[in-house]
């Protein structure tokens, strides 16, 4: 039990200094966060008109808030003390008017501010989301999904709560502050200066604290994001956790991350908790200074005692809004940390913008040429190099080779998920780098290696291929893909809702749906990346027919391991270690007796030999 006394002092110190890559501390002081505040302001200023109205209302309510007590004081003096009734009615009416107006303006400013704040947050979220879609695929390869999710929810949530509370508070405090300083200056400039002596002290104190909290809050949000990422991964990968009975390991790792969050949040909160306390001490200090110096001045007869008394009152008036402001600082700081992380993503470079003079491909015949293409993901060691081949419109090209030889990479380059490092790709003679990405992908249909399905009905998932497809077209596509029969057996047929990540149906069925989706898209260039790997071979045979019909008249790229599915291809490219080593039709390649030959015979006749 006694151990608990000391616990708050046993937290591991979290470093509030930013580290360089090599682990040394940055000498540079933390960047001023003014840039971040300015950017938040930019969002707020979309609603300038309403914001100005709120500002006016804040001024009005601040005034009314002071006028009410003044009237009451007057009432006491005039009526209670004298015991007279005359005119009390008028005063009460006036008072009622003031109070009603006061409450109404408070209400209105809050209602409007909430509207502004939530609209701002809404815009930030939308912008962030939109921006995410403009980022290159490589960005997503490096990030944890849950960590990104945390930015869109947790970090923006921080901004949201601050905007709701703090803006009005800051406004009204500033208004009071300015008013008070003005009155004080009018009364005695000398004492005002004395009062303001605490301002530099305050400044340094705040700076000391914010230098720490700024980074600590950022650290806290970062840790929260990391934790979010971990949870997302573990919950999605629950099947593995369970079958490997690694629950304890996962719990331990989680607790370590959770502990890190706890530590950074502890320090962030503790430090920011100092602010109001510091303000309080400074208040009292200023009061004592005014009393002391005022006393000396009064002794010398420089100022009257009345002025000192008023001044003492006003110095409290002066520090009260400062106090309120400092109380808001907490949330303000964590909001800035949150906003910072949001802006970090917004500042990520977009997928290289299409060149200004890039063209739209209105129609695509489907001629594809790779000319001396090299590319690497990590910029070290080429994934594919010196790729050369030409495909005539309507041809089917099969990519064959060991795993990791670069087959999917070629598809990624063709669809410009990634851009070639050197060489060029041409479609109908247009260099891809001069073609608008969107217009390129419009002509392509994909069945990707992992057949991703969205939460939604079967119908919606197929319709993803072409949003304006009619129900009948959806069903026809499903029939062609041989998905119709299993869909019929689902509880609500085409309206069956698939769980998250396409839960509820088997992997092979997912592939059938992806094929239906691609069929519906009706593209000029069709890409099938292991499209049938999880489908049993009898079903596959049936789809082959459909696919055969589908591929007719379209340029198709097929990656498959089962060679029988690609024997009919016009061209087979054999990839090994990122290079094309063999090229030709099935009979041609068999004659060459190279890699393909070996592969083919290992697959079909290994038991005979």
């Amino acid at each position: 039990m006694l151990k608990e006394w000391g616990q708050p002092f046993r937290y591991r110190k979290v470093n509030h200094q930013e580290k360089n890559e090599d682990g040394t501390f940055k000498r540079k002081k933390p960047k001023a966060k003014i840039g971040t505040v300015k950017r938040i302001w930019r969002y707020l200023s979309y609603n300038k008109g309403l914001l100005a109205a709120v500002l006016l209302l804040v001024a009005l309510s601040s005034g009314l808030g002071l006028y009410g007590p003044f009237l009451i004081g007057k009432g006491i003096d005039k009526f209670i003390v004298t015991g007279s009734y005359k005119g009390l009615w008028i005063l009460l009416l006036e008072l009622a008017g003031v109070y009603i107006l006061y409450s109404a303006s408070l209400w209105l400013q809050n209602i409007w501010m909430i509207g502004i704040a939530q609209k701002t947050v809404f815009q930030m979220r939308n912008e962030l989301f939109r921006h995410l879609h403009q980022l290159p695929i490589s960005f997503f390869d490096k990030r944890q999904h849950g960590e990104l999710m945390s930015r869109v929810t947790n970090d923006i949530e921080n901004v949201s709560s601050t905007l709701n509370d703090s803006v009005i508070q800051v406004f009204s405090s500033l208004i009071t502050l300015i008013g008070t300083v003005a009155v004080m200056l009018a009364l005695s400039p000398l004492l005002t200066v004395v009062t303001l002596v605490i301002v530099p002290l305050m400044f340094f104190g705040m700076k000391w604290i914010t230098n720490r909290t700024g980074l600590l809050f950022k650290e806290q949000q970062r840790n929260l994001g990391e934790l979010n990422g971990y949870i997302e991964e573990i919950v999605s990968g629950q099947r593995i956790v369970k079958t490997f009975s690694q629950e304890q390991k996962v719990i331990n790792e989680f607790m370590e991350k959770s502990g890190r969050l706890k530590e950074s949040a502890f320090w962030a909160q503790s430090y920011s908790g100092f602010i109001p306390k510091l303000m309080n001490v400074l208040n009292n200090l200023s009061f004592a200074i005014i009393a002391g110096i005022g006393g000396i001045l009064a002794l010398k007869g420089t100022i009257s005692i009345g002025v000192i008394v008023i001044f003492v009152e006003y110095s409290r008036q002066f520090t009260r809004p400062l106090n309120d402001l400092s109380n808001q600082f907490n949330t303000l700081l964590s909001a800035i940390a949150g906003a910072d992380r949001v802006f970090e993503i917004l500042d990520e470079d977009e997928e290289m913008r299409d060149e200004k003079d890039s063209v739209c491909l209105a129609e695509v015949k489907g001629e594809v040429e790779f000319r001396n293409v090299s590319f690497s993901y990590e910029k070290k060691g080429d994934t594919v190099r010196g790729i050369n081949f030409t495909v005539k419109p309507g041809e089917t090209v099969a990519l064959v080779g060991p795993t990791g030889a670069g087959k999917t990479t070629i598809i990624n380059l063709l669809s410009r998920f990634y851009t070639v490092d050197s060489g060029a790709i041409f479609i109908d003679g247009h260099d891809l780098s001069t073609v608008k990405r969107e217009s390129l992908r419009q002509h392509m249909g994909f069945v990707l290696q992992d057949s991703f399905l969205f939460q939604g009905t079967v119908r919606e998932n197929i319709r993803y291929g072409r949003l304006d497809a009619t129900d009948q077209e959806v069903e026809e596509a499903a029939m062609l893909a041989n998905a119709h029969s299993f869909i019929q057996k689902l509880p609500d047929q085409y309206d069956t809702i698939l769980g998250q990540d396409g839960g509820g149906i088997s992997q092979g069925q997912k592939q059938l749906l992806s094929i239906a989706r691609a069929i519906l898209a009706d593209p000029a260039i069709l890409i099938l990346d292991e499209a049938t790997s999880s489908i049993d071979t009898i079903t596959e045979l049936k789809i082959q027919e459909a696919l055969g019909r589908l591929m007719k008249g379209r340029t198709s790229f097929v990656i498959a391991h089962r060679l029988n599915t690609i024997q009919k291809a016009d061209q087979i490219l054999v990839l090994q270690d990122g290079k094309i080593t063999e090229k030709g039709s099935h009979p041609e390649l068999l004659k060459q007796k190279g890699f393909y030959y070996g592969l083919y015979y290992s697959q079909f006749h290994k038991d005979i030999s």
Partner: protein
Amino acid sequence: MSNVFSLLKPYRISIVIAIFFMFVELVVDLLQPLFMSKIIDNGILHKDLPVVMTWGGIMLAISFFAFIGGIINSFYASHVSQSFGYDIRKRLFIKIQSFSFANFNQYPTSSLITRMTNDITQIQSTVFMSLRIMLRAPLMVIGGTVMALIVNFKLAIFLAIIIPLLIAFLIWAMNRGTRQFQSVQKRLDSVNGVIRENLAGIRLIKAFLRKDFEVSRFKKANEDLKNQTVSVLRLMETTMPVLLLVMNLGIMGILWFGNVQVHSGETKVGEVVAIINYATRITTAFSPLSFIIRAFSRAKASAGRISDVLETDIDLFDQDDATSIKKVEGNVEFANVSFRYPGTDEPVLQNLSFTADAGQTVAIMGATGSGKSSLFQLIPRLYDVNEGAVFIDGRDIRTVKLDSLRKQIGYVPQEALLFTGTIRENIAWGKEGAAMEEIIKAAKNAQIHETICKLPDQYETIIGQKGVNLSGGQKQRISIARALVRNPKILLLDDSTSALDLKTEARLLACLKNYTCTTFIITQKISTAMEADNILLLEDGRLLTKGTHEELLKHSSLYKQIFQSQFGKGDARYA
């Protein structure tokens, strides 16, 4: 919900300390006007500088004292709120780890994530705030009312009537707020859900140019969230002006009746002034209250969502008399097993019976959706059977402790799920504390060692979320190595070689023979099935037939069809 806040118990000492120092601050705050009046009345008005200095000094000292108290309070309050949050997170996570898959279906992943981060943050900050400022407001309200009643009961009765009414109003608003905040959090779940899906399906979205579609989908979820938030916050913010208006009207009433009573000589002027003074103080004390109430309803809503998870019934757990299974031979028996996924009516497996002897290789074939993967999930008991039983070494697996059962099993799922981390870490997942040699051995057998060695950082290469920077086949082989490193007694390969080229696959299957384990392989390829001791052919959740390759070729027309689909008619001759 009591459930959640009861987790505060271990921190009662810290809570008491925090509250104590909050009181210290409060007392100092209340004393300060007294000192100030001394300085003014005794010092400045009398031009007595030493008095000013003395009392000023005392005031500074005492406020410094309060400062120290405030800092200590800050430490303890952060400690309590952070540790409390940490504890809830831990509880939640442990609970979720014990979830069955049926339980997981109740909560979308995105919702679990929101609950574990955002909801906890809400509760945490409310606790922190409570320990720092919360008590002030209610104490001021109650103290003020009591004092007013003491001064003049008749006049103060106004306050005594109004205030309980206002408190009732606040409680009403709080309850409504809680419900609405719950739906705010739910909307947050769906925003989270859309983002999660988009991140996972980003390739597809880009490929199909569905950016605008997704953006508008997100916009809708986001808009719902915005509207719900606006509506609850507006409700909350309405309380404040109403409260002020009522209190201020009350003050007017006091003014009126005070005047009447002063006139009739019943009440002294000073008493009226004092009561009005108390009323204004109470009014000021109310103003942080609306903030507090908002925080409370939000925390209550979040706590409700958290306890929902904590109170979820786990439907798959160790029986009381379950015992560990130490050494497994690897005999697996399915006896009349029927199974349907929880919450569905359609059976996926019906009346399935077969045995696999230790060390055997069993291939499972069947059309897409025939129940192959479902069958696999029953062996590590990811789901319980509805009828019949699964036996391992003659023991019904429901009588075996879950973790001791699963320790014996190496499972390679269809989709190679990897985690962020290095390749070494991912393989070592299979066996905690696996030595580097063991990892390399597993990698070699899984035919991935050479590929790993070519990577820039070899085994220390970091793979991104879900292994995105590896090819499909590489992911599958790492996932196989992960299963092999634990030297399983039962190995389940769920079509896990589909992305491998045939040579690699053949080498891999040959290497599996180094392991003495019962192997189940779901496969589409006859060439793989041929090697098996036994082939199970499933159709629509029923075991159509079983036997060796040769037997099935003779008896089963379906198997013959599959064979022909892969080898063509001509090749069937060699069988």
